[in-house]
């Protein structure tokens, strides 16, 4: 029972890890993309549709990622090419993504598919407790951990990661040094879209085997909050996502056990927890802003 509970917590946090890690890279390059929710929805509907038509979950996941990336490209062209307001453009992306995914997904409602094959590691997965908890997840769950490790390595240890951070911290200096500010930022935005698309794909393929309008239910926004919670450090995203996964599952478990608290209040928990966490992190300015990209949300154009 407890093993199953922990397993569900881990699964619930996977989409958050993908979306938040993608957004972390975007923000580290100095761009604030508030359209995560829209990109996740586009990823979810495309993944479900392609997986259903092709019968291949792998193709579904790829389609989800590409759909998220295409949606992000739209954002990138506007925000980087036309120097539009990032907050408003991100909101537009969420509204657009929610609408288009609903339109595309209308014929998919009521269908169901099975989840990704679980990657069983021989011997290890048969160990009691540890085998179930550590070695018997789906491929995407392992991918999430590898992703965080790779992003952490990229930011901290590679030259390209250094350039990305430099552009996020001072785009004028980076430009003067000859780096293509807009080029790097566009790549970062595309990466963010790809990851949000993967995160979205996880929802209808793994968590609930069907598509529903607006099925992300604010996960894209929680992913944005996670980036703040993580104070722009990749490994902390993992910790934050597990906490949120735990809170989400706690309310379901509570309902199942017949807690007397009305279900609406239990459902509020992830949102209230987000606010509490934001307050706790933000009140300590030195901690929260130490790694915050200095140019976050500021438009750049070379002719300035």
């Amino acid at each position, binding site marked *: 029972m407890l093993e199953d509970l922990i397993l569900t917590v881990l699964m619930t946090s996977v989409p958050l890890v993908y979306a938040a890690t993608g957004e972390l890279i975007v923000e580290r390059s100095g761009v604030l993309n508030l359209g995560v929710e*829209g990109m996740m929805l586009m990823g979810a509907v495309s993944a479900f549709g392609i997986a259903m038509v092709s019968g291949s979950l792998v193709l579904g996941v790829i389609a989800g990622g590409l759909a998220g990336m295409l949606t992000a490209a739209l954002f990138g062209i506007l925000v980087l090419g036309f120097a539009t307001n990032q907050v408003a*453009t991100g909101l537009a992306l969420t509204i657009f993504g929610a609408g288009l995914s609903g339109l595309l997904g209308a014929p998919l409602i009521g269908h169901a598919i099975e989840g990704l094959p679980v990657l069983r590691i021989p011997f290890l997965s048969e160990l009691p407790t540890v085998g179930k908890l550590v070695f018997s997840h789906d491929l995407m769950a392992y991918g999430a951990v590898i992703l965080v490790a790779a992003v952490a390595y990229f930011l901290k240890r590679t030259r390209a990661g250094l350039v990305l951070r430099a552009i996020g911290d001072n785009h004028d200096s980076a430009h003067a040094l000859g780096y293509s500010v807009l080029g790097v930022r566009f790549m970062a935005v595309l990466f963010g879209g790809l990851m949000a698309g993967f995160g979205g794909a996880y929802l209808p393929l793994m968590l609930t085997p069907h598509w529903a309008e607006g099925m992300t239910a604010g996960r894209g926004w929680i992913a944005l909050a996670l980036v703040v919670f993580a104070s722009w450090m990749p490994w902390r995203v993992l910790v934050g996502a597990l906490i949120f996964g735990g809170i989400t599952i706690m309310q379901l478990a509570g309902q199942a056990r017949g807690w007397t608290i009305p279900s609406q209040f239990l459902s509020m928990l992830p949102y209230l927890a987000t*606010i509490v966490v934001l307050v706790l992190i933000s009140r300590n*300015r030195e901690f929260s802003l130490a790694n915050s990209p200095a140019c976050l949300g500021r438009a750049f154009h070379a002719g300035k």
Partner: protein
Amino acid sequence: MISLTPRKEIPLTLTLMTPLVAIALTLVVGAAIFGILGYDPLAALYQFFIAPVSRPYQVADLFVKACPLIIIASGLVFAYRANVWNIGAEGQLILGAMAAGFVALTWPNLPGPVMMPAMIIAGMLGGLAWGMIPALLKTRFNTNEILVSLMLTYVAVLFIDWTVRGPWRDPMSFGFPLTPMYADAALISRVELPGIGRLGQLHWGVAGALIFALAAWFMLSRSILGFQVKVMGDAPRAGRFAGFSPAMVTIMVMGISGGAAGLAGMVEVSANIGQLQPDISFGYGFTAIIVAFLARLNPLAVIIAGLVVALAELGGDSAQIALAMPKVVTGVFKGILLFMLLAGETFNRYHVTFSLPHRARMQGDSDA
């Protein structure tokens, strides 16, 4: 590559043309998307933008639909002008409706002249209180108002759901999640013209919305507060040197936009529904964001922008019925419209030129 050169001055014609061009392009792109998805594009556009206003009384209904949008957007203009991003108007609307509903349901026997003002004040206070949470957390703890106001919207949706299923449910509602009907004094009446009669669903709240937008325009353009808001948005450093407090401005604009959203919630329930239920808003709080931008953050233009966006909302209903499109399709139009408006803003402020990337310079960089 796209290169931008700031314009020295912005011609007035350009300022006026931008929203019109944005709307025209939205129609073209929207039609193309419908075509790709296998709908007849012309039929879709007809259902969206002509069918909802093809009869005279429907024009009156357009004003009814625009009413909450105009009220909310008039308030949001203050926040966005000051660079404070309140995107939780939907939640503030719900709390406003609940506060007004509390008055109507607790004291159903209040006489009309007391009831209406009490409900209006309660509605505004409800929205204001909900807006104060992100405002105070921002000024006190430096939290991000975008995320907090949005999270509070989810909380508000769940809160009203619990209230109308739990403590406020009408015992006579046969298990439906509804409160008792409001007393007549708590309802906003329909407009009735002598000799003509009723004009569709047109109610007096619409007149209130127009007055509210005018008042907002006056406050923004003629008052010290409006001046502070604009300075803090355009040049925060100059504002600080002038002694304006950023925290105070944040609190004021969140209060105004929250109060406006709360008022919209009160009007919507009292004029159209007559009791509280789980769904009292159809995303008006989010749609009003687009209205505010379409109006280029000018409360007078909010009236026209509100009508334009309301047309797309009604069009969504008619397309749903006539072409079996899902309701969310309006979101596609709204999203594209906002994209076009934001890009239009760039054409307004910059000379935009398109060119091929400079290959030579790139190579020089990598050699270095």
